[in-house]
């Protein structure tokens, strides 16, 4: 029973480019975003891209915070009815296609899982890329399940499902301008759909970069930040659904 003993310690000590190794007296700065000479700094780019995505999610959250406050304020507002000369509430709750929305939710949550697999698959590929380039080293047959493609399909299915939900509403006579309640249903779901479509475009770009033979780490960055965006969109959708179902 020969067991494989590594001759290299599993945890490399950080090199001199490590953050705190040889800094001037008072440390704390970044590394200026500078890569090692001669190699593109994918690690730094990934870090910045993730940070940028975290920052970018803030205004999206603010957008929906503003919509929510408008939703709640508008819900409580009375309006003057000229026929009866009375102040009435014109907020007529829209009967939502709840079953359809739940199916869509499942599709979106499933896509959130698949994009997470896609993200991890790519991270693994990037990590193993240098090993694979050593002659004679084989990692066995990697099963490359098309998680990315599946996510794109699921994303489009969700949008299709939303379209069905809108047509269902329209069939029952609830259009955008029918009443304040229906306006908000279309507004919230529509704005969410536009944002999710943006995520799909990013994934299509990532998929296209396979065809265009872009470097793997650069594709990984796109998929990685899109995955975080996608999870945020799934959470946002659950929030919107809860708002529409429970606060109408």
């Amino acid at each position: 029973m020969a067991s494989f003993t590594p001759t290299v310690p599993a945890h490399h000590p950080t090199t001199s480019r490590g953050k705190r190794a040889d800094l001037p007296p008072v440390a704390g700065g970044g590394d200026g975003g500078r890569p090692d000479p001669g190699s593109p700094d994918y690690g730094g780019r990934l870090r910045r891209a993730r940070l940028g995505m975290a920052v970018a999610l803030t205004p999206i959250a603010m957008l929906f915070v503003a919509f929510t406050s408008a939703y709640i304020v508008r819900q409580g507002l009375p309006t003057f009815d000229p026929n009866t000369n009375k102040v009435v509430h014109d907020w007529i709750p829209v009967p939502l296609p709840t079953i359809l929305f739940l199916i869509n939710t499942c599709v979106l949550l499933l896509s959130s899982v698949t994009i997470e697999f896609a993200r991890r698959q790519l991270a693994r590929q990037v990590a193993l890329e240098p090993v694979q380039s050593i002659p004679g080293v084989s990692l066995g047959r990697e099963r490359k399940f098309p998680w990315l493609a599946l996510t794109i399909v699921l994303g489009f299915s969700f949008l299709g499902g939303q379209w069905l939900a809108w047509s269902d509403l329209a069939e029952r006579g609830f259009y955008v301008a029918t009443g304040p309640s229906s306006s908000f249903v279309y507004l919230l779901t529509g704005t969410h759909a536009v944002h999710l479509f943006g995520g799909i475009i990013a994934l299509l770009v990532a998929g296209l970069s396979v065809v265009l033979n872009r470097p793997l780490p650069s594709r990984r960055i796109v998929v990685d930040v899109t995955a975080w965006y996608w999870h945020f969109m799934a959470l946002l959708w659950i929030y919107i659904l809860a708002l529409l179902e429970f606060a109408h």
Partner: protein
Amino acid sequence: MVAQESHAHSAPQGFIRKYVFSLDHKVIGLQYYFLALTAVFVGMALSLLMRIHLIWPMAILPLLGEIKPETYLSLVTMHGTIMVFFVLTTAPQGGFGNYFLPIQIGAPDMAFPVLNMLSFWTTFLAYLVMLAAFFVVGGAPLHGWTGYAPLSALQSAGPGEGLGADLWITSIALFCVASLMGALNFITTTLDMRARGMSMWRMPLTCWSWFITAILGLLAFGVLLSAGILLLMDRNIGTSFFVPLGTVNGQLTGHKGGSPLLWQHLFWFFGHPEVYIAILPGMGVASQVLSTFSRKPIFGYKAMVYAMLSIGLLGFMVWGHHMFMSGMSPYSAFAFSVMTMAIGVPSAIKTFNWLGTLHKGRIRFHSPMLFAIGFVSLFVSGGLSGPFLAQPALDIPLHDTAFVPGHFHLIMGVAAIFGIFAATYYWFPKMFGRMMNERLARIHFFFTLIGTYAVFMPMHYLGLAGQPRRYSQLTELKYLHPLLPLNTFMTYAAIITVAAQLIFLFNLFWSMFKGPKASDNPWEATTLEWTTATPPPHDNFAGRTPVVNNGPYEYSVPGAPRDYVMQTDPATVAAH
């Protein structure tokens, strides 16, 4: 791959990639700056037309002919919008922030150069769409820069509220997107791209001000975007978010149940932080310049940062003070009033720290210093009327008078502009490699300082005397007749002040080509931009990576060989 290539993208060669669709933050900064420069002259021209109309209402003006009331309202709207968005938001943050944030923190570029380019071109597109509103049928919108509904929400509400208003809202929405992209870039760059040793507490106050401004923009512009989307839906799809039941020209509008107040809440939740978005970079520049030209460390560096942070934080809690007149529960009004007056505390901290910096300094009265001192002066005189207006009991009689324009023009308009001027005179040598003409700069300064005070200080008296805002005809109102000489004086002052800006324009362009060559550090300043070549190379430090050993304002350090210690100098004396 070039071995020494330490930059995310190599220097471009062709004209288009170098100067038009450039990824270089310095070129993008200049693009923002020149966009703001054209915008400020458009804005000034509009204000001159208004001032002329106010005292000679029957005058036939070039291009416009006789000014009708709706034309006057269009002028008000476009002057405000262009100045607030395309000058006060664009030049200090987009212009100088883009140019100097990466250099001052020792980075080769912004974190996302492509996003940076997109951000500028989206701003440019927004500017074109905004200007297009002048030329469509009906002309520019009437609803003011605040776009109050239902005037802004109904196509039939007046000339200019048709296509002109749609263009206006579209432009604002585009501007929101552009600003969000910019803010995202500023925050990521500040957090992730700092050079070694450049801890947050070693950043120049300019960087802090751009960083905090970016955070404000990130939180505020999303809300304005949401309001813009709702407004476009009300106008074009027939929803009723902002429009209550009612008639326009005797006809039912078809809307019902919407709330005009909802628009005001959403707008001012953006609008008040926007005021600080305009002034915070000016505060940063004033701190930088006052310290440099007093040859003293800034008084209370950390207090300055905390003051800016608390101004930013409080800025999100006071939007209701714009709406005391719109109908508000006295309890809410009280809360907004107290929060608003609380902003006086960090503002006073800043002011006293500036004065503390000047105190016993070996002051060099160069043109950037003059404008920085002018900034402090205007900040005080414009700011002092703030606590007046923060109180509902005083705001209600004053709100719709000329008092309020007097207040916000001094503090948000002219003070922020003085910040831009100080920044221009201070950084011009670094940006263009030449010095500006000092004598012209002084003439420009004194004309502008006295001129702007002469225009905007009397507005307070006019307001107290009851002169309303946004009225196109003042000469018909009998009780305003005694105020006509003062109004006439203000118009002449405005004409002279605007004419004095031509001195600046001449100085700017003449010095760009004919000014004496500038050294790398003409002001003997300490921050990183003065350690690199003039003008800086494509990657800012020519492949070097600066290492920071000192704080940003080490002037007159005892025992140091010179009266200033650069941030990159060895940390031998600056340990305190």
